[in-house]
């Protein structure tokens, strides 16, 4: 079944898009990540222009995270105060991201920068995750429990001026820390079409030192609003949001997410994390090779 994408200006196989969304959805359901970090590169591999891929993927992440936010809200798993600060920073981040996007596009370097950012980000996060999950898998095999991680925020965060109390997160820190974190993920959302959960969650745990029970919910809350802001920003600046593409991705991903959530209940969390780390690293390696190999087409066209 072929479908014409009115903004990307090309026709794609709708089934491929739905399956792609579904595959990413399975992973996002299993791991509680938005999956934007897989959607955008896969769309680019499939031949969708990078700007359209990033913009439409962020629209899709909005839909993919909404029911998660409701679920976490019901359990009291969202720190709204922290979330608001993150979103506030994130909205500025999307605006800054839009400016960066425009500059890089004029310079003709947007694709390279997107690729390099992916390699660096996925490589480092994937590497950290792999290392951590390997240690915990080994520890559980040996039969001795891991020493419980001490929860405390990074010294850099502790040194920031002006402190607020975030009751739900159990923190007394400067709001500048989540503000900056939100700002950076906002830029990422705009440039890469990722929700940023896989940066946000470790950063909340290890940089801010938030309580684990509110981390995922608050991160989803931030993702929901920042991807909304990024869709608006893309619509206004790059005009690259393809709603047809986003809807087909979403159809696949919401179904996939349900399957993934059910699969996750049967798997051991250590192995699950290791599996996710492997996937993240594979995407990073594929993108790194893409940078280094001589591309099929060394020329690109841009209408003036």
């Amino acid at each position, binding site marked *: 079944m072929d479908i014409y994408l*009115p903004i990307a200006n090309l026709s794609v196989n709708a089934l491929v898009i739905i399956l792609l969304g579904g595959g990413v959805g399975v992973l996002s359901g299993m791991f509680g990540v938005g999956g934007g970090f897989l959607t955008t590169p896969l769309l680019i591999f499939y031949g969708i222009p990078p700007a359209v891929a990033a913009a439409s993927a962020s629209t899709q992440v909005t839909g993919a995270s909404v029911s998660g936010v409701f679920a976490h809200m019901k359990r009291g798993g969202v720190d709204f105060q922290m979330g608001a600060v993150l979103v506030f920073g994130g909205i500025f981040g999307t605006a800054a991201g839009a400016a960066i996007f425009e500059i890089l596009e004029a310079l*003709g370097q947007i694709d390279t920068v997107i690729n390099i950012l992916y390699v660096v980000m996925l490589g480092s996060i994937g590497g950290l995750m792999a290392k951590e999950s390997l240690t915990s898998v080994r520890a559980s095999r040996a039969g001795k429990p891991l020493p419980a991680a001490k929860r405390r925020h990074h010294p850099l965060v502790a040194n920031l001026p002006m402190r607020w109390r975030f009751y739900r997160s159990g923190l007394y820190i400067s709001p500048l820390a989540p503000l900056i974190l939100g700002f950076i993920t906002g830029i990422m959302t705009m440039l890469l079409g990722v929700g940023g959960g896989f940066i946000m969650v470790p950063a909340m745990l290890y940089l801010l030192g938030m309580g684990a029970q509110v981390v995922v919910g608050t991160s989803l809350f931030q993702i929901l609003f920042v991807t909304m802001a990024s869709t608006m920003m893309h619509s206004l600046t790059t005009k690259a949001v393809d709603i047809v593409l986003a809807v087909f991705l979403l159809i696949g991903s919401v179904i996939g997410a349900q399957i993934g959530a059910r699969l996750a209940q049967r798997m051991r969390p250590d192995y699950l994390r290791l599996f996710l780390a492997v996937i993240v690293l594979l995407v990073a390696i594929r993108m790194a090779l893409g940078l280094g*190999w001589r*591309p099929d087409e060394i020329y690109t*066209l841009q209408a003036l």
Partner: protein
Amino acid sequence: MMRLLALLLFLLPMVASAQNVPKLVPDVSQREINIQSGFTGAEMLLFGAIIYPRGVAPEGQVDVAVVLRGPTRSVTLREKQNIAGIWINADSTDFRSVPAYYAIASSRPLSEIVDSKTAAIYELGLERLQLSPSGEVDAAEQKRFVDGLVDLNRRNGLFRQEAGTVEITDQVLYRARLNIPSSVPVGTYTAETLLIRNGRVIVADDNVEVRIRKTGFEQLVTILAQDYAFFYGAMAVLVSLLLGWFAGYVFQRL
């Protein structure tokens, strides 16, 4: 009286020669191509008749070339180079008149039916397109960019050159098929037919226009995205939210 006669004598060969020139009656299978949700590209049939003076086809072979050409636009072409192990856009040049689409089909290979001068005048063939490159003074470098542009478009299916695909029946009727990919830009296209004999273009006709446009939902989406960006963005957010929320609601009940 003498003067009138002289004038007549002078004009007669011109009228006669005008009569000796064959006339083309070209047409296309579709004057309008509508891009809708199922659009996967189109096949355009360019066909027509050659009307010879006094209905007599000349001795020897005639050849026909047909060209379908999209609107011209200015583009920047960027070239990737390997810098420190990474392929990044390093060089670029501007072209002021690149057709959005260009397809040529001929009854025999172009090099066999026209000389290079004629080919250049009528822009016959991908190597003969006048793309107006600017900004590069070095001829070799310019050629590299021109070749790169043509090659890129050829691989995208937006530039095509086919030889031997124009069928000529009894030297009178001709037809050719040209493929249009789904990524074709919208706009007004011209279909041109050229009758070629002895290396020269005898007659050319480019009066047939083809409109390629998005219709219905695809047109609506494009207009909204371009001209009502805020509304379009808000709509995209809303659609995504509702679809995501609805799916979550449905699955909870399953």
